[in-house]
């Protein structure tokens, strides 16, 4: 049952760092985060890692496992070959603080730039009436646990640091879509999505959807519909092309 696994864990800080090799016991049913914790408890007491719930609900333990953006608590050791060396590195898109912990403040800055829910002025608390079928679309996006793996993966910022200013990233474009589809929200959000939050920079490669641990269909259900709503006002070549292809 138990075996000795080979781990390579990136250790360092803002000034630089490197991969460190560890040999560490693994027991049946464990996940990558268990192994990181075992390293902390037995070999590297100051190994920095973020985590909270250990059940895929809080979105704290995001990292890259063998290059794939993952939640460490939901990555089971049984998915790897026992002989395989498992490499754990911090999310690449955000600046490293220490070891596996990155500075994700970019996301909190972006969150503040999105106009908040604008409640209807004529309804008092307790008077809200909405149909289940109408709230379900936004509810899908509110499943988001803010692990920021989609933000980490999206090449519009992963490979283009200079886009960080003008691009909110999939998580926060999805937040705009969520509010835009909220049955009682009164704000007009479509112009800002395009002009202030960089919706046009998304070229629907669906990388965000692929890494979402909550299996939210970010691209299909949030970003593309938002682009379609925007296109009424502004010409977007990708949507135009998409429509051309799909209608054939």
């Amino acid at each position, binding site marked *: 049952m138990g075996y000795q696994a080979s781990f390579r864990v990136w250790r360092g800080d803002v000034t630089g760092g490197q991969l460190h090799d560890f040999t560490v016991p693994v027991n049946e049913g464990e996940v990558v985060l268990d192994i990181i914790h075992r390293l902390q408890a037995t070999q590297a007491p100051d190994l920095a890692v973020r985590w909270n719930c250990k*059940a*895929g609900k809080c979105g704290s333990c995001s990292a890259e496992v063998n290059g794939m953006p993952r939640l460490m608590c939901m990555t089971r050791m049984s998915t790897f070959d026992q002989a395989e060396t498992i490499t754990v590195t911090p999310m690449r898109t955000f600046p490293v603080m220490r070891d596996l912990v990155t*500075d994700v403040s970019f996301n909190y800055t972006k969150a503040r730039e999105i106009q908040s829910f604008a409640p209807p002025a004529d309804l008092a608390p307790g008077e809200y009436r909405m149909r289940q079928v109408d709230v379900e679309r936004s509810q899908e996006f509110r499943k988001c646990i*803010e692990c920021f793996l989609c933000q980490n993966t999206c090449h519009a910022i992963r490979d283009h640091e200079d886009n960080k200013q003008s691009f909110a990233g999939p998580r926060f474009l999805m937040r705009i879509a969520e509010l835009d589809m909220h049955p009682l929200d009164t704000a007009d959000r479509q112009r800002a999505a395009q002009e202030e939050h960089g919706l046009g920079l998304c070229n629907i490669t669906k990388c965000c959807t692929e890494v979402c641990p909550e299996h939210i269909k970010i691209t299909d259900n949030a970003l593309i519909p938002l682009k379609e709503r925007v296109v009424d006002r502004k010409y977007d070549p990708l949507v135009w092309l998409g429509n051309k292809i799909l209608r054939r």
Partner: protein
Amino acid sequence: MTTQIERHEYDVVVVGAGGAGLRAAIEAAEAGKRTAVISKSLFGKAHTVMAEGGIAAAMGNVNSADSWQVHFRDTMRGGKFLNNWRMAELHAQEAPQRVWELETYGALFDRTKDGTISQRNFGGHEYPRLAHVGDRTGLELIRTLQQKIVSLQQEDFAAHGDHEARLRVFAECTITELLLDTSAGATDVPTIAGAFGYRRETGDFLLFAAPAVILATGGIGKSFTVTSNSWEYTGDGHALALRAGASLINMEFIQFHPTGMVWPPSVKGVLVTESVRGDGGVLRNSEGTRFMFDYVPEVFRAQYADTEAEADRWYADQVDNKRPPELLPRDEVARAINAEVKAGRGSPHGGVFLDVSTRLPAAEIMRRLPSMHHQFKELADVDITAEPMEVGPTCHYVMGGVEVDPDTAQSRVPGLFAAGEVAGGMHGSNRLGGNSLSDLLVFGRRAGAGAAAYVDALGDDRPTITEADAEQASAAAVGPFERPDGESPYALHQELQQTMNDLVGIIRRADEIEQALHRLADLRKRAERVGARGGRHYHPGWHLALDLRNMLTVSECVAMAALERTESRGGHTRDDHPGMDTEWRQYLLTCVLRDGEVTITKQQQPPMRPDLLDLFEKAELAKYLTEPELTGHRKPGAGGGGTAAAAGTPEGHN
């Protein structure tokens, strides 16, 4: 050694950024107070996200017979009448407004056919009462409050050009000490003057000067091996309050949630929501028996079904049928599972079977319990739409906490407030599912308002921090680095968890608790020698070394109170004192620190107000109250049922 300290001044400092902390901060900020929120984790990651089932509030959307009086009765029954009745009353009255308010912040709850907020059944609640979003209600709550705070910050940005002008979140910061003003002022007692802590990222120190501090730090579950709680639950607020001179009550009462995962070992303790049972799931032992029918205690006999047929009819017709015993309060179900496993009728991995697969169509399970499906599929390779889950009790919630004034949430220490799990009294000896999220909102708001009013009353006469106190706090915090070869905090933590789990767990005995107290005394000495090596930059070993002190103090309170209370009630089961004792109900055990040592005193409960007593049948009260206490009941033979529910107009109901 002089260490640089980053200094801030606020009107109100909220320690903790879960549901209670964020709701308190919103209230304080809206009252015009400059407010700081200190969060051990990133903003939006608090343990509240783990709450699954829902928020209990008698809105009456699904069954219009519901009212605050019925909710109050259920809460008192669930807590075996040990609850602070005033808190239970305020909670039941105000919960609906707190839920409706969330909709104005942007929350999207599941709906009824009429378009109102849907409500689901839960253990101990007479009517469908829990507002919910599938089985991820806690996430909805935390995100909604987080987004409301962002919205307030946007307003401040528009007015002052600075998002953080009036309300600032200090993410990944830990408070290690509260600071007092002990100079005899208007009052003769020490008052809150601020708080000291560190930034987890850099290890730099933080000093907050503030006349009001609200503790909203949650619970203590990390002192146990098998727990549903995250690393943050190290009893910080409980210990900070004690060291500042406040009192804790009810520390012997710890809720073991009946259904935690039992396999694989690495997820042992992770929560399986009570909604599984609320929506039809049943518990079976290895012989296939629905064993809960054998565990209905006498006090609940009248409300729970005798046969499987009646229990099954209840889901469709709640008027003519009694409830399934799977929906007994959590303490009863946890003890029953424990007994079945001990009797050799457990599942292969030492739990029992929780089955929803034969009770609901797969599509319905996927709709109502999506995150449970996901959790079991990904972590245990179990498809809950096709096979039963294996579950067992897990340390989930501490009913005990800071003794507070029900209306203002202020502790014995002027300027120190507490709300949510860190506060005691509301839930008595056992909390009903769904009453936690509502507790956070109701008393979070009250703490925010209480702190704001306290600051207003102070005027310009603000307490001050002494440099000596700040230096002492700073020296204590760097302590572990002076012992680079000291003991490992991780090893010590494991021993502590094992001790509490084995000796002060779900079933307790005097000799075992005494043994635990000996071990805790030894661990406390060793904890003074734990060490950390290297820099202060994001150093989890150092963080744990500092948290250990709090866990040990709080564990001592739990063990001492558990030894003292020689009866079994709610979340405190004594094998050597199995019965519930009406005499004991009149007393709370209160912990304070005297010269650094935990001491316990027995404190009489205030008698329940007659109009609240009248909400119950006298016959039911007689099961819990002593004969002299019953004389307060003014309607012999009447009361209870629908008549009482119609007696008053619940605040804010429409």
